[in-house]
């Protein structure tokens, strides 16, 4: 089975959006869930949180940052190209209710999966305050889309090239201090280190906080246990017990350490890939 890429948008130099035709996944997909895709027969299983879904067109929207060899390779594909495998929707959907006032935080490429959650929360009647951030203006995307599903939108960049020059935790803390609105719940999706600091920020205020973890994972269906995360109550699997967890129960040190385990191999794969691309580029006709 092959899954066709119907649309591609370049959100920044390294952040790409794709609509993939996968009606079997789109029909049951909900906010908070993820897919696992494989580019070709040599490929690895790549877990990606669903950025959007459309039952009518049978498409799933994925957004990814080119960080390793596989995402770089994925980023070179064009509309009309197909990928070998696309499974899902996996994991538990976000628990959507009317909580009152909620905060949705997206960091970097984490803006993509926070969007459908914010939208669903808005549709459920919540007052949604969104805080999105990235290292710089270049890496920021979907500001307009986020605005349409938010009652209030705060935009930050680390370097101040757009919006506020701040980490996303700063305006979050101010919200708690402002006290004109009682924040019932916070969702945060982004790099593990950002989620850790959001968790540290919300804890003193006792605001329930949900994070979506993106650990190392192979099958995504509960078989390998590679994605296990230490919570207060013991180890759980991100793929079948998550991907969303109570941020205050997550052992962040263990999580951050486990994310490092294959760094050497990841670097090797990237070097090999860049070398291959360079050689292709030097061929007559310029390769792909």
């Amino acid at each position, binding site marked *: 089975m092959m899954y066709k890429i119907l649309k591609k948008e370049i959100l920044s130099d390294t952040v790409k959006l794709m609509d993939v035709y996968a009606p*079997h996944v789109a029909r049951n997909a909900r906010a908070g869930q993820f897919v696992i895709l494989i580019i070709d027969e*040599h490929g*690895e*299983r790549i877990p990606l949180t669903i950025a959007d879904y459309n039952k009518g067109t049978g498409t799933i929207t994925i957004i990814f940052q080119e960080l390793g060899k596989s995402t770089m390779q994925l980023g070179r594909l064009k509309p009309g190209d197909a990928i070998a495998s696309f*499974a899902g929707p996996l994991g538990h959907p976000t628990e959507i209710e009317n909580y009152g006032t909620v905060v949705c935080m997206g960091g970097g490429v984490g803006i993509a999966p926070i969007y459908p959650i914010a939208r669903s929360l808005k549709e459920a009647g919540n007052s949604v305050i969104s805080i999105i951030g990235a290292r710089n203006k270049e890496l920021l995307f979907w500001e307009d889309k986020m605005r349409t599903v938010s009652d209030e939108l705060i935009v930050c960049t680390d370097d101040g090239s757009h919006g506020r020059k701040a980490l996303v935790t700063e305006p979050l803390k101010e919200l708690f201090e402002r006290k004109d609105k009682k924040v019932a719940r916070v969702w945060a999706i982004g790099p593990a280190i950002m989620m850790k600091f959001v968790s540290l920020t919300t804890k003193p205020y006792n605001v329930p906080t949900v994070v979506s973890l993106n650990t190392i994972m192979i099958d995504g269906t509960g078989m*390998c246990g590679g994605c296990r*995360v230490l919570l207060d109550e013991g180890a759980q699997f991100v793929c*079948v017990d998550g991907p969303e967890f109570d941020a205050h129960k997550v052992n962040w*040190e263990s999580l951050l350490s486990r994310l490092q*385990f294959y760094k050497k191999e990841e670097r090797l794969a990237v070097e090999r890939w860049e070398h291959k691309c360079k050689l292709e580029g030097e061929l007559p006709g310029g390769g792909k």
Partner: protein
Amino acid sequence: MAELTQKERMKIKRHEMSNQDQHVRRGNYDEVALGYSLETAREEAERCLQCKDPKCVQGCPVGVLIPQFIKALREGDIVKAVEWMKVKNNLPAICGRVCPQEVQCEGNCIVGKKGEPVAIGRLERFVGDYELAMRTCPLLKAPKTGKRVAVVGSGPAGLTCAVDVAREGHEVTIFESLHGPGGVLIYGIPEFRLPKSVVHGEINYAVECLGIDIKVDHVIGRTFTLEELLKEYDAVFLGTGAGLPSFMRIPGINLNGVMSANEFLTRVNLMKGYRFPEYDTPVKVGNKVAVVGAGNVAMDSVRCSLRLQALQAREAGQNSGEVHLVYRRSRDEVPAREEEFHHAEEEGVIFDFLTNPVEILGDKEGNVRGIRCVRMRLDEPDQSGRRKPVPIEGSEFEITVDSVIMALGTSPNPLVFVDAAGLERTKHGTAVADSETGRTKKPRVWAGGDVVTGAATVISAMGAGKRSAADINKFLKGEASW
């Protein structure tokens, strides 16, 4: 060849199967056991006494017509041998390689009472391989009935059930959660024990002959729920296996370098991690590996570790490391197939029997640096009939290792039970199903294999798939009501 007397048959020695040299094979993933030649197979077949009341058949979970296929084989009629085989067994090339024959057919063989049993497994493999190459006996399909059956999982239980149901003319769709079919035959059992080409060969054959549709990337419980399948299909068989790994409840389990055997074997086998970076999925073991457990999965894990170490050492120009197998009982209780244990021993695995880990030790960076173990002694037999291991006080010691692989058994994958009201489960997480018919507590749903029994063998899963298929066929014909 003149007809031999029984006495003469008893005198023939069991034929050895040639193996890849133990030193060479440590450095590659090619198949270890090389199979019989036609000549050897026919000579081995001469050892069968053709018992009137064949005990071997009783020992086989699918009841292969053993005397019949062996007789045809020794008469040189391999096509006939294939036909006899396929009456009961659709996957002989697989069974011949992975069945624990010593406790099944060969364990019951009369010749084995005084000497060594007839090498039924090796003969089965010979017949299976012949058929894969020649395809003499295409599976026949009855005229279409218009009935539709969904099979969830494409491992040994699901494949066997699918074939037996499709032969009756029913339309069969298999749903597989991974990106290719085969289940544990692909993600679990390594290439050097069961080549993937053999598995693909058996699957393609069945699928082509019988028009079975396999939908990969479909996770039942998520992509479709059981309730949704029941709206579309007349019957549903669950052969989802036992994929959820168990970890010991000891400190240090989340350190870097601790893996479930499932993760390790999936990286190696399904994702071809041993060929990283040509394949994208990395797999790594350190210089000193400890595998905890002593079942077939543990044997596969130690043997994969040895090979990975050899490949890594070759690239780095270093010496291979060492691989320990840590087991809390003794040699006598090892549950793995005899041949797997023997091969692991030959390849240089260090066996630490009567040893149980109590803590995994880590360094500052969160990587494994060793395991603290306690010595065990065997007490009176427990419920399983095996002598119960108890810790010896004050016997704690450390083994320096940098990887720990947990091969402690698995429980059923939970996803299939999502939105499946009425599908009863035991407290172990297995599906409740009748052992004869495979019927679950939910109408029109059958289940068999590891999802019902917990982790067991390929052939027992095939047996369950077969029994369920027979009952599904009866049900669809109207010969049995629910």
